[in-house]
């Protein structure tokens, strides 16, 4: 597609339930990133996929968080046993291989509310 697509755009879930957030990156982009943005805050790195390399998971806040990227394209971020502090906007971004310029292109995000 023309841009990074995320779904759903909004998700309300009950505390303790599992949620899956989806990201469809720009076609041909080999790098994919997940960030989290809490209200009025900056962007917190979660995880980074680059081609066939092992993902950089160093930003995942707990073992309740996991992410997969299938076929080098679509990615799913899963949060198990959601807690209220997980409420945030989850942003996905993609970029080409590192080259002359490698700024990200972001999607519009999924706003997760845990009640």
């Amino acid at each position, binding site marked *: 597609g023309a841009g*990074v697509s995320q779904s759903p755009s909004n998700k309300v879930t009950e505390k303790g339930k599992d949620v899956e957030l989806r990201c469809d990156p720009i076609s041909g982009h080999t*790098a994919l*990133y997940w*960030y989290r943005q809490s209200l009025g*805050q*900056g*962007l917190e*790195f979660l995880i*980074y996929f*680059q081609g066939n390399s092992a993902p*950089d998971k160093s930003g995942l806040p707990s073992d309740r968080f996991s992410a997969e990227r299938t076929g080098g394209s679509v990615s799913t971020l899963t949060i198990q046993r959601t807690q209220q502090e997980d409420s945030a906007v989850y*942003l996905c*971004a993609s*970029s080409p291989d*590192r080259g002359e*310029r*490698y*700024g*990200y*292109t*972001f*999607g*519009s*995000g999924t706003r997760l509310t845990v009640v």
Partner: protein
Amino acid sequence: GESVGLHLPTLSVQEGDNSIINCAYSNSASDYFIWYKQESGKGPQFIIDIRSNMDKRQGQRVTVLLNKTVKHLSLQIAATQPGDSAVYFCAENKGSTLGRLYFGRGTQLTVWP
């Protein structure tokens, strides 16, 4: 008008004035910097970038200045318009980690007609 990033997270300017948004970065090893604009309900949008071998770069109505001596980055917006109202983030790439960006807290710019 000017902001000082973390110490003054909001900036209000009159339409037509120039705006300066400041950012202090933390790592002297960072070699790539980006400014993003985020409008309400949207993801951040790339504005302009600069590499550490440069101290100034210009785009359309925007200029980024990099002072490596004091680890300071600024974004200048000329003739600010109401459509420029948004949160502006600086981001740095720390050279040891391929691709990962570290974002500042952001500055809310409000432009009054």
